[in-house]
């Protein structure tokens, strides 16, 4: 049996770890609340944006706009949104797995990392890397999304890439987060909506020019939305992971306490036996 001192030392080590995990859990709970609030606030914007784009595209019919058809380049730009820190359960590795396990050919991909965990992993695995936007994930602001989207749209316009994807963790609720792959360009026109939409919109300037101007905004808003959801998911994932860690620490502590008390008792019993034996020897 381990000595009393060893057990005590181990117990206090687990206790201090537990304090850290507890604190991290509290911090990510607060951050999650904030991220959730932001996601909620931006919803109106995205709904309006989506409606406009859908009605625009359904009206535009079959015009031949570069944003709407795939170019010949086999390259795919993939914006990979991960966290910059670990200790969030499977959050980062699920995203990396999703990128790797796709039907995608490794040589066709250009990774635009948002979040240093993803950046480091894919750089190590030898993927072709695009611009790094890892700083953006700390506190996603719209200007960052604008930068990313203008970069990938540039690459799309110059024919460097033929398709643009974003891979991020969708936030469904606090316990469910879904690693998601979303195709940004070329846009697929969904014919779910008929022409009896609430308004037949006119465009000023002409529809073709409007597409030129509105699609980048649409892409930006999608990227921004993905970043916000990813932040919410990251914090929710970390909260869960830290909650589990705290519970495990509790378990270890209670079993160590049991061991410690047993060791203490047997030490006392042994001392008593020795004293009694000594007294008997004298008398």
């Amino acid at each position, binding site marked *: 049996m381990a000595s009393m001192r060893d057990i005590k030392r181990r117990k206090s080590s687990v206790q201090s770890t537990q304090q850290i995990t507890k604190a991290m859990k509290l911090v990510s709970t607060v951050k999650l609340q904030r991220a959730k609030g*932001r996601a909620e*606030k*931006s919803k*109106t*914007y995205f709904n*309006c*944006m989506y409606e*406009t784009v859908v009605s*625009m595209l359904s009206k535009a019919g079959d015009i031949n706009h570069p944003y709407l058809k795939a170019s010949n380049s086999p390259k795919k730009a993939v914006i990979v949104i991960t966290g910059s820190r670990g200790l969030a359960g499977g959050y980062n590795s699920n995203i990396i797995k999703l990128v790797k396990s796709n039907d995608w050919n490794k040589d066709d991909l250009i990774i635009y990392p948002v979040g240093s965990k993803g950046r480091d992993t894919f750089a190590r695995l030898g993927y072709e890397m695009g611009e790094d936007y890892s700083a953006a994930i700390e506190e996603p602001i*719209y200007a960052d*999304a*604008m930068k990313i989207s203008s970069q990938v749209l540039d690459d799309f316009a110059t024919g460097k890439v033929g398709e643009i994807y974003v891979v991020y963790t969708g936030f469904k609720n606090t316990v469910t987060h879904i690693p998601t792959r979303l195709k940004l360009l070329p846009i697929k026109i969904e014919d779910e909506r008929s022409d009896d939409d*609430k*308004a*037949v*919109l*006119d*465009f*000023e*300037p002409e529809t073709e020019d*409007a597409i030129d*101007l*509105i699609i980048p*905004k649409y892409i*930006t*808003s999608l990227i*921004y939305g993905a970043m916000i959801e990813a932040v919410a998911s990251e914090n929710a994932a970390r909260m869960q992971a830290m909650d589990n860690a705290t519970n495990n620490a509790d378990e270890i502590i209670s079993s160590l306490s049991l061991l410690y008390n047993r060791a203490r008792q047997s030490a006392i019993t042994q001392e008593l036996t020795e004293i009694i034996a000594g007294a008997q020897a004298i008398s």
Partner: protein
Amino acid sequence: MAEKFKLTIVTPDREFFNEEADMVEFNTTEGEIGVYAGHAPLTVIVKPGILTITQGETVKNAALHAGFVQILPQEITILAEIIEWPSEIDETRANAAKQRAEERLADHGSNIDIARAEAALMRSIARINAVKLK
């Protein structure tokens, strides 16, 4: 008094404005327009400029920089990427930005992005004007 319409201004971060209004004016790619209730359905793209909201006697100004506007007869939705009330604008910073953009344009250097400098100039002018109107 003319009919009122519902004016909603949303940004990715917040709901900027959501009230009834009589008229709204702003700058678009095709020039400045003012919209009353009952306008034909239209979608326009915003250019940096002043947004003026008229509600009866009160007039509110804001600096609107980018986005687009969906106009329906009874409802106008402005999807603004960047919009600020005059009280949120840092005038000294706007002045500095204007100067910088002007210098860059005057400079005609080899590898400056003229479109970007022009956009920056327009944004700073819109900000300065919005502060002055306050």
